[in-house]
């Protein structure tokens, strides 16, 4: 299982652990875990729109923080449910840069079973770390 929700961290919020062999895959899994809090049937989301995003941060933790927040921004600003396609993370002058293709469509209440809104990515117990199998993240979302 690439991500797992946790009940033992925060009662009012939603916590998950995600893990993957590469940092790029970790970003993908964390994005899916975040979107699945809001959308029951992620498999029904059509890749009707494509967005290219480029974000830069000083380290992996803050880069993932910004990346997940970008998904929340598009959910509110353009009503888009987006899932990551290709993700590329590379060193840059400021630290690390992620270039990602986000694919998805506008929320369609007739087709998408919506759950609870995610307000923010919090810093509570927030961690992105190297582990023996690759990378692991712990994220608590404010809902």
């Amino acid at each position, binding site marked *: 299982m690439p991500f797992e929700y946790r009940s033992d961290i925060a009662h*009012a919020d939603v916590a998950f652990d995600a893990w993957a062999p590469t940092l790029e895959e970790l970003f993908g899994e964390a994005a899916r875990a975040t979107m699945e809090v809001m959308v029951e049937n992620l498999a029904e989301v059509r890749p009707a729109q494509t967005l290219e995003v480029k974000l830069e941060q000083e380290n992996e933790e803050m880069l993932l923080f910004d990346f997940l927040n970008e998904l929340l921004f598009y959910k509110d600003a353009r009503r888009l*449910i987006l899932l990551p396609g290709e993700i590329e993370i590379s060193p840059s002058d400021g630290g690390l840069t992620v270039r990602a293709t986000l694919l998805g469509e506008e929320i369609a209440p007739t087709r998408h*079973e919506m759950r609870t809104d995610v307000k*923010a990515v919090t810093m509570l117990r927030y961690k992105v770390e190297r582990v023996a199998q690759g990378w692991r993240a712990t994220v608590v979302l404010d809902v």
Partner: protein
Amino acid sequence: MNVPAELKRISETIWELPVSHKEGMLVPARIVASEKLIHEMDAGVFEQVSNVATLPGIQRYAYCMPDGHWGYGFPIGGVAAMDPGSGVISPGGIGFDINCGMRLVLTNLTAEQVQPKLHQLIDRLFARIPTGVGCQGFIKMKSDDFRSVVQQGSRWCLKNGFATQNDLDMTEEGGCFPGANASDISQKAVERGYNQLGTLGSGNHYCEVQVVQPQNIIDQDLADAFGLTTVPNQVVIMFHCGSRGFGHQVATDYLKLFLSVMERKYGIKIVDRELACAPFHSPEGQAYFSAMKCAVNMAFANRQVILHRIREVFSDLFHASPDELGMRMVYDVAHNTAKLERHLVNSSRKELLVHRKGSTRAFGPGMPGLPECYQKTGQPVIIGGSMETGSYLLAGMSTGGDAWFTTAHGSGRTMSRHEAKKNFRGDKLQRDMEQRGIYVRTDSFGGLAEEAGAAYKNIDEVVEATELAGLSKRVARLVPIGNIKG
């Protein structure tokens, strides 16, 4: 058993962790709870309230209210007052949903009059008040106009025909925190929020139709003063929502900014990154204070526009104007704010920056800032229970000074959302509730299951604890008959 060994009982409902409990605590941490509630508290409450006690400039105590539960940075239910000169401002002490709050609105309709039309009423409220993830408001505006909304709050609503002067009078600070400057908010925050004015949201946000049954009036004089007993079995409306994506983005923007300057520029070390903060009088602290006020004002305007819609729905259905239906606001209470207030410290009055996160201001009788009509009664306090178990109207007490005249904000969760979804099914819960006389419409059965009554603390015990602690006094219990949920 989560209770730390060092926890001392100070009175029937006040518990204290001394400064020796954790390295760096500057003041003791106090938790308001009955014996039963203290043993039900999350371990996270003790951890987080004692972390709050380490923040620079904190005065007297770090507090947690009896509905307290595990949050981020501060516990939900957290209260802390800082000396503005030496202290900090922390987004973690306010929350991401800035000025999430509640309103209570009266009608002169009785339950007997509303029951035959209850399904129609709830269906129409559900159709007319946008709910759920990604919902958009019914007021179309340009992003520049939105900048006026966040600077003016409810005053913008009054100018644009969505409010009455009495609505503003019944809202803290007249529905507009002064000093909100839109130049302190990001374009991203504007884009995230400008199409959401007049939306309820999801999670624990709801709009509920309730009945004041005569046997549930606890203090007749206060109930009369608050306008609760104009008719027997009076129907009232309570709703809960906040500053939506705009406020969430403001909080995220400044959490990141504070993390980048806190230690590097100001040498402040904290025990939890969610407590990121900056000196109140620093440029970053002042910018956040202003941006937070913008989000406070957005939330006031959001609840005001929703109130306008509720009035339209009632007016259409019952063929009478909102005035004829007696649709007067009792009060609007804010849950997630920081505000400069004057309080007694060591016998002299001092200006303090009071953070309230998941807790409610509860000014006692005679305090400045209350409308004239509530000067003798104290502030009305609206406590939303779970959608199954009822809610309360309380009044602030003159004995609440130790907790900076603050009380609880709701029931408080005891069960995680994940666990609640494992234990309850939304569609079954909806049917069961209807059999018990509560008609619910929702955008999400998963979301409904998460809000089941059994996932929350016992509201009766929570409000009783606040009364025994001298923070707020019970006026009436309110019973739900209909609810719309995101």
